[in-house]
């Protein structure tokens, strides 16, 4: 009784204290604040939905997109490494607007001698410089790249005025192009092809000095229509090097003239196979079309090596036709070995194709086409059936770059044909990644120039799933690893980045030119965020349906980040505003910890009057805590409880009850700023383990601290937060109770050395 009175007194005192405190505070009242909650709705960040883009995240009733069709004649001059082109562009204005001018992309202009891109990162004097670098920087002239535009003419042959602004070109129309109308015009151009192994151009040639040949991977090579859309008008962010590109969809008819001893493949379907293939190649191709389990060689290494020794002055024209693609690329050389196999997807046969110089073997003949075929199957199962007739992986040194149906990939063995695991897995991973880009952004046509993460992040996430599936399907290919050694995707792998200096990290929602570390920013972090969303926050079933919905809604269309965010919520009934806000709009990180544990027992208290119906709990640091009562059933300690159970439960029910004897109040804290599900593993004295995942909403009202009560029949011995490292928690020293002493890696090495 005395204790209870005291408790009453303290409650009264508390009121007084609060009253007093308020009086003091009135003099310097705290200022108000706006909504600081991590769970605040994203209405301010998101554009208001409209009839072009619905609140559901789907294209709205008035959604439109432009179309650009091309007929092109291309000629490659292998002697001087120059390329010449003449193109007819037919542009369809499906927008409701009248267009006074058209903008085209001239990506090659990033390589002009006076390119602004050269100075984008500033420069410093190096007090000691490699001679070769010095000569390049100060003595010799820089590479003479960029487009030479011979003319722009209308359909009747009349010259059209045009203005070049860095990597873009404006063509002025005699009369505005009305909504719903088409306009055709011609451009003639040429440029010097760069050596892509220097300064990392995304396309160009590699020169092989042993045999004097070049292998060309050609893309971003013709004046291409820019995107005009309801969100940007004309896309107007120049090509500075990092933000790749987005283009309107269209149909292509392309004739490419190359030396007669070259083999060539590119975007689209070859129209004159019989003219350009030998009889031998033709019959091998027929076999490849029926080979679903392994590739058939179309051009052998022996044949490619024989071709390397010559240099034909004759030419051949390869005719390709592609429908509904957003760009066009091709690869050509006399050095290429070529293999193909068929992949069945959605009742259709798709060709998985690889082209590589002999320098890629033996790695390429073993893994390239296998990786292409696997990627098509894996990605299709998570999105939509691959709609194009083929996918080609071309080996180019140091390259990893994607175009519709064709991509360039690195992964070169040593000269003696040996290769490290890093080379092998790097090669398989980059092929999965670049072939995977067919889905994002070649088909789900997001704007990379603005939002690098929308294609790189989504693709890297898909790549992680495809890699893990590859490991499960081909255990012999990844041995002795138990699982595929993915470089990105696992939550723990993003920890070094997210725990790094805040001055060198940017939110995912940043333009790719303006971030400090493009790799983790556009690839690793969004991929990990999506992986965590799938595995830990939403669960695979809910996530997969929503992700598939996004892919299908926006295939062959142009989505924005909001269309993705909105669809993921719309199709899952999970309000993810807090997740997008934290992971995509801020540089906050996850750090959760167990701060304190307070143990309670049911107290033995004689009670009367109003308090008779209560059960009392006392904490282990209180004077009235009785260690002798540890492990005793509460119904034996508390008369009130016993009486209640006797009055309200049958004897059988009482017998069946396993009463909790230990009560714990656990304080969890979150020094990091990202709210996440709190995954806790509780271990008890009898060895039993219980896992509880508390929803992220526990952090709604206090983002720094939350208390949870658990009760159990046996004593709690261990608490571990996030035992499987699923949340990218940057500091796990505060994740355990009792605190674990972590072994020092340096001491361990010293011990090992001593032992020797």
């Amino acid at each position: 009784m005395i204790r209870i009175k005291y408790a009453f007194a303290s409650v009264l005192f508390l009121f007084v204290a609060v009253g007093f405190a308020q009086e003091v505070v009135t003099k310097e009242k705290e200022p108000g604040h706006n909504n600081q909650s991590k769970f605040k709705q994203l209405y301010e960040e998101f554009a208001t939905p409209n009839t072009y883009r619905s609140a559901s995240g789907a294209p709205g009733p008035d959604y439109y997109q432009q179309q650009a069709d091309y007929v092109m004649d291309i000629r490659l001059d292998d002697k001087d490494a120059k390329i010449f082109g003449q193109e007819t562009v037919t542009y369809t204005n499906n927008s409701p607007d009248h267009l006074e001018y058209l903008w085209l992309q001239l990506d090659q202009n990033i390589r002009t001698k006076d390119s602004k891109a050269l100075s984008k990162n500033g420069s410093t004097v190096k007090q000691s410089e490699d001679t070769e670098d010095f000569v390049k920087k100060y003595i010799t002239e820089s590479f003479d790249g960029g487009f030479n535009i011979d003319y722009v003419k209308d359909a009747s042959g009349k010259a059209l005025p045009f203005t070049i602004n860095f990597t873009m070109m404006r063509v002025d129309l005699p009369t505005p192009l009305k909504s719903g109308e088409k306009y055709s015009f011609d451009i003639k151009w040429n440029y010097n092809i760069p050596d892509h192994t220097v300064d990392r151009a995304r396309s160009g040639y590699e020169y092989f000095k042993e045999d004097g040949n070049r292998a060309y991977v050609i893309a971003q090579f013709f004046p291409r229509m820019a995107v005009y859309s309801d969100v940007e008008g004309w896309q107007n962010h120049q090509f500075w090097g990092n933000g790749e590109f987005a283009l309107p969809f269209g149909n292509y008819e392309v004739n490419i003239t190359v030396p007669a001893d070259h083999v060539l493949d590119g975007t689209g379907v070859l129209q004159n196979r019989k003219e350009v293939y030998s009889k031998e190649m033709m019959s091998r191709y027929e076999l490849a079309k029926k080979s679903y389990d392994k590739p058939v060689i179309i051009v052998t290494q022996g044949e490619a090596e024989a071709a390397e020794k010559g240099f034909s002055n004759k030419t051949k024209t390869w005719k390709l036709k592609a429908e509904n693609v957003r760009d066009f690329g091709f690869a050509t050389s006399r050095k290429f070995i070529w293999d193909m196999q068929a992949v069945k997807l959605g009742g259709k046969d798709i060709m998985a194709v690889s082209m590589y110089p002999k320098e890629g073997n033996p790695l390429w003949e073993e893994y390239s086409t296998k990786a292409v075929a696997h990627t098509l199957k894996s990605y299709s199962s998570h999105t939509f059936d691959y709609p194009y007739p083929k996918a080609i992986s071309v080996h180019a040194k140091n390259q990893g770059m994607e175009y519709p149906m064709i991509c360039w990939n690195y992964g070169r063995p040593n000269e003696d044909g040996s290769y490290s695991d890093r080379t092998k897995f790097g090669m398989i991973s980059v092929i999965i990644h670049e072939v995977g880009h067919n889905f994002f952004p070649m088909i789900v046509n997001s704007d990379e120039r603005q939002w690098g993460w929308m294609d790189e992040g989504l693709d890297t996430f898909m790549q992680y799933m495809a890699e893990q599936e590859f490991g499960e399907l081909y255990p012999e290919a990844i041995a002795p690893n138990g699982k595929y050694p993915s470089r990105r995707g696992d939550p723990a792998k993003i920890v070094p980045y997210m725990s790094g200096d805040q001055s060198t990290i940017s939110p995912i929602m940043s333009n790719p030119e303006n971030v400090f570390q493009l790799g983790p920013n556009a690839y690793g972090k969004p991929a990990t965020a999506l992986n965590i969303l799938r595995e830990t926050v939403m669960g695979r079933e809910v996530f997969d349906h929503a992700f598939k919905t996004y892919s299908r809604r926006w295939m062959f269309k142009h989505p924005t980040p909001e269309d993705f965010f909105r669809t993921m919520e719309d199709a899952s009934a999970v309000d993810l505003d807090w997740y997008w806000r934290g992971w995509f709009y801020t540089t906050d990180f996850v750090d959760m910890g167990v701060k304190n544990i307070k143990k309670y027992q049911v107290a033995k208290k004689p009670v009367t009057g109003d308090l008779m119906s209560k059960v009392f709990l006392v904490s282990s640091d209180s004077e009235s805590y009785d260690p002798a009562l540890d492990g005793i059933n509460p119904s034996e300690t508390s008369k009130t409880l016993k009486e209640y159970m006797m009055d309200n439960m049958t004897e059988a029910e009482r017998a069946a009850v396993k009463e909790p004897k230990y009560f714990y109040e656990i304080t969890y804290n979150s020094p990091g700023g990202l709210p996440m599900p709190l995954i806790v593993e509780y271990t008890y004295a009898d060895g039993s383990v219980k896992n509880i995942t508390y929803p992220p909403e526990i952090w709604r009202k206090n983002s720094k601290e939350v208390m949870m009560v658990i009760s159990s029949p046996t004593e709690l011995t261990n608490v571990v937060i996030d035992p499987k490292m699923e949340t990218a928690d940057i500091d796990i020293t505060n994740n355990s109770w009792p605190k674990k002493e972590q072994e020092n890696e340096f001491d361990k090495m010293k011990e090992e050395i001593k032992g020797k």
Partner: protein
Amino acid sequence: MKFFRKALIILIMPLFAFSGAHKFYISVTNVDYSEKDQSVQIITRIFIDDMNAVLKERYGIPSKLGTDSESAVDREYLEKYIRTKFLVEINGETVKYEFIGKKYDTDMVIYYLEVPDVPLKNLKQIGIQNEVLTDIYDDQQNVVHFNINGKKKSHVLVKSHTKGMLNL
């Protein structure tokens, strides 16, 4: 904190990429202080094949680090190379460090360096000059994380900027 440190180095992975997905060249170094040993302790993780490539290119030895045919010569040149390209500076002066040991983890080599006899009270400034692999790869990124007496700083060192400092 100790585990955190370990996590940092184990989980390095690509900090930089350029376009679609270029092969990346990177090392990660953690520079910590041990009060127990009164020493600066340095752990570096770097790709084995890159190290073999540089030893071959620079010294003309058929280096086979990380394989069964790794030789004493390979190890000798590895240390020689590191000592040429990786310098530690304390309070503005280059200091000697001990090569404690190395081990392998899949495609990475991890090596352990220690600067002994550095009382914390005398430690005012520490610098790392890391030019490892910049002699063969223009794109090499050498990331250095300092974590000394609760003070943290990270540097991304590149060929044109090879030195990172921490003032205490």
